[in-house]
Each structure stands twice: as structure tokens, then as C-alpha cells.
């Protein structure tokens, strides 16, 4: 397994040992009295990528653009170990909770925007070291392609692909090949790995811009 980035540790909290970051509790996760809180890979695709040993290239402290932040479960942990973190989510429903999570953090910037329209947040978001994407809707590769302009030349894309979002009936491997194929027009794929047992029919991808 690759080294964990600064700010992420395997710690025992409660009666379990697992990933943890240090920051204000965000969604009722187990915490210990030194400020560490459990990052459950079953509730987070990025958590699953890290837990299963994928080489994300994260070191801690980087600038992040997070696409598909939902209620902020994963992005709360990201903001704990990363630098300035821009969290894009387009559904109004989960944004309330995302706002609460952002309220407790100094460098987490919530943006109620559509990730398919980067021009609507390019006036706010700076070029970043890492794009983390978990949108779980049709056209996942296209979202990564349209947002490529935010990534530094030596940056990383950490992408979770949900097979069922592209095609409920197709074989997941076929869907993954297609998504990765589309991605490869502008990204070089460094690693791909299924996220079982944490997430069924999801693929984790690490890529860098071509």
C-alpha cells in the first residue's frame, strides 16, 4: 500500500481501526478525544480508493476541486487534509448539509453549480492540484473532460465511476472500459481498480492530464 498523505492516518476509534482525518465532526461519524474522526470507506468512494491502496498521489495540503460534493461526507475529510477545497454540487437538497460542513471549516468553499458548466464557476475556482469527482450521473467521463482546464499540468484526477449511472443493464466492465476510453482522449490513466467490497459496481481511476 502506498504511504498515506499527511493528515490521513489509520487509527483505532471506538472498537475499529481504519482511516481517519482530524477535524470537526460532520455527519455523526465516530470520533476520539484528540479530534480524529472515522472516514468509513463504505460511505466514501475516495475513502475506498485510499483504503484499497490505490496510488492517489495525494500528499496533503493540495488545492482541490471536488465535483459532486452532495451533503459533504467525503469532502469534509478532504478539507481536513487538503488545502483550499472547492466543492461543487448542483442539487439544492443536500446543499444545506454541505453548508453546515463548510461552516465548520476555514478553506472549504461550497458552490451550488452544475459540473457540466465549468464556465459558471471558473470565475471563482483557481487552477488546482487535484480534481476529485463522484457525480454518479450519466456522462461521467465527459464531466472529467470538461473540467480538465482546472487541473495543473502535473495534477491528478481521482475519479469514481458508477456503472449503473451510465447504463443500468450493461455489464459494468464494459461500461468502465467505455468511460476510461473516453477519458483517455485527454487524460493518461495511471491506475484503475474496482471499489469492491466497499462499493459494488464502481471503478476508481487515477489519471493525469495529457
Amino acid at each position: 500500500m502506498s504511504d498515506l498523505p499527511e493528515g490521513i492516518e489509520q487509527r483505532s476509534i471506538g472498537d475499529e481501526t481504519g482511516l481517519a482525518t482530524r477535524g470537526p465532526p460532520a455527519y455523526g461519524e465516530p470520533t476520539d478525544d484528540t479530534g480524529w474522526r472515522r472516514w468509513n470507506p463504505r460511505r466514501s468512494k475516495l475513502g475506498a480508493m485510499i483504503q484499497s491502496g490505490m496510488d492517489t498521489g495525494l500528499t496533503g495540503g493540495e488545492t482541490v476541486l471536488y465535483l459532486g460534493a452532495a451533503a459533504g461526507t467525503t469532502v469534509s475529510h478532504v478539507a481536513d487534509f487538503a488545502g483550499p477545497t472547492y466543492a461543487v454540487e448542483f442539487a439544492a437538497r443536500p446543499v444545506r448539509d454541505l453548508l453546515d460542513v463548510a461552516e465548520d471549516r476555514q478553506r472549504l468553499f461550497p458552490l451550488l453549480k452544475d459540473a457540466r458548466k465549468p464556465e459558471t464557476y471558473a470565475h471563482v475556482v483557481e487552477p488546482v492540484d487535484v480534481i476529485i469527482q463522484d457525480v454518479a450521473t450519466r456522462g461521467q467521463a465527459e464531466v472529467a473532460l470538461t473540467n480538465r482546464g482546472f487541473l495543473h499540468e502535473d495534477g491528478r484526477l481521482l475519479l469514481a465511476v458508477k456503472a449503473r449511472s451510465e447504463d443500468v443493464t450493461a455489464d459494468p466492465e464494459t461500461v468502465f472500459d467505455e468511460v476510461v476510453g473516453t477519458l483517455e482522449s485527454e487524460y493518461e490513466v495511471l491506475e484503475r481498480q474496482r471499489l469492491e467490497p466497499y462499493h459494488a459496481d464502481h471503478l476508481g481511476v487515477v489519471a493525469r492530464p495529457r
Partner: protein
Amino acid sequence: MTDDAWFADLDPGDRAAAADRIREGSAESPADWPALAVEAGVSADEAEYYDRLRGATLAAGRAAASEREGAVDQQLVHAVRAMDDCRRQANELAERVAEWGGSRFEEAGTGVEYARELSGRDSGSVGVPASEASGGSSEPRSDGDRQVLALARQVVALDEEADALAEYIETSTPEVAPNLAAMAGPVLAARLLSLAGGLESLAKKPSGTVQVLGAEDALFAHLRGDAPSPKHGVIYTHDAVRGTRSEDRGSAARALAGKLAIAARVDYYGGDRRPGLQAELDERIAAIQARAEGGGGDE
């Protein structure tokens, strides 16, 4: 290039304007905004820049969230109540029309359908002679006739308004609560939202409460000790409950309420579609309904 920046030409103290800019602005491509802000003297240093950005994005997010919430789930609450009002009044008036019309015209009928029939005639052709009892006038256009027809048209208008509201509910509910709408059907989903007072409060209710939403009277009677505890509220109208024989309806209602409560939570907190919930419900209901087969109970 800096012209596109969210902070360009803003009064630094004006957070509302900054929030608007975050929401409405755009740029073709990103730029190193923190450095540009410092360079332009807008912020003293990057830390100050990020503090300002934080205030602006939080304000923008809060404004956008309440706008959209106010714009959708609360609208649905009103729409459902208005639809029910229209239907109830249409039915009440229709009874009056039936009673009145039956005394004047030969063929009688009941309900909104009869009102629709009457309103379809133009007042000149009402001429079916009234029954003996009504006085036997063959003159079709008495004032009384006209009044009945006008009333019938009101019934139809109210009924059509209710249909239009139902249509609005059917298209809007899946936007607010996709999982709940898929599982309950949009109208029942909107009724649950309405009884709970919105998606947030529905998402925070335990499934036992969801099960009896709409049966508050029965619930209070039960709490007073006057009645057995209600097995279900509005979810009674769902096929999973209605299609189950009566001795198993309590179990079906409990299973359905459990899944609906989860669907509401997914809709409020998460956002993605979970077709798996429906499959789990179907399985559970099939198992409950299968109990009837061995015993040869009623349908």
C-alpha cells in the same frame, strides 16, 4: 482577465453583492484568482482572500438553497392542499348540482360527471322537459335552468383546476424527491411532504410516524385510549397496502413506511437514485402477500 473575477469592482464590505457575483458570474477559464486579487490590491494576502471567498461562497450557497427550497418543496405543499380543496369543493358543489338538476331535468345523475354532462349543453338546448313534479314547463331557458348550468360549469372548472394541479405535482415531485416519488407515486409522495411540512421534516421522521401520517385523528383517539392504534395513514392508498388482505395490511404498511422513510432521507441528504429500494420493497410485499396463499384468504 481580472475583469471576470468574482471580486472585480466589488465593494469589499458588500457581502450580498459578492454572493450574487458568485452565483451569477462566469469566466471562460480559471485563473490564479488568489494571486491576482493580491496583485490588484483587493486582498492584503492570500489568507485574507480566502477568508473573503469563504464568506461570499457561504452566503451564496445559503441564498441559493433557501431560494430553491422555497421554490420547490414548499410549493408542492401548497399545490397538494389546493388540489384537495378543489376536489372537495367540486364534489360538494356537484352534489348540489345533482340535487337541483334532478328536480328540473329529466335524466338525473350524480357527481362531477353529471355536472360535466350538464355543462356540456348550451343553455339553449337544455330543453328536455322537466318531470311532472317540477311543474312541467317545456320552456328550456328558465332562470333556474341557467343557474343550475352555471353552477355545473363551476364544478367542472374546479375539477379541471384540480387536474392541472395534479399534473404540476406529477412533474415537480420527482425533481424534489426522486426516490420518494418513484416509490410512492408523485401524488402520494407530495401528500406525505405536505403532511410532514416539507422534505426536510419528512426526512427526519421515524418510519413509524411516516406510517400513520394523515391518520392523526385516529392516533389521538388511540392515545386517549378510545381506539386501537391506526395501522396506516395516507399510505393506505398505495398498492402495496391496498392490494394486501386486511389481516396483513399492518405488516405491509410497516414495510412500505420503512422504505419511504429511507427514500425521503436519501432524497434529502444524498441525491442519487436508488432503484434498489424499490426492488427491496417489492420483495418484502410479495412475501407478505404470499401469506394469504396458503390460507386461501380474501384477495
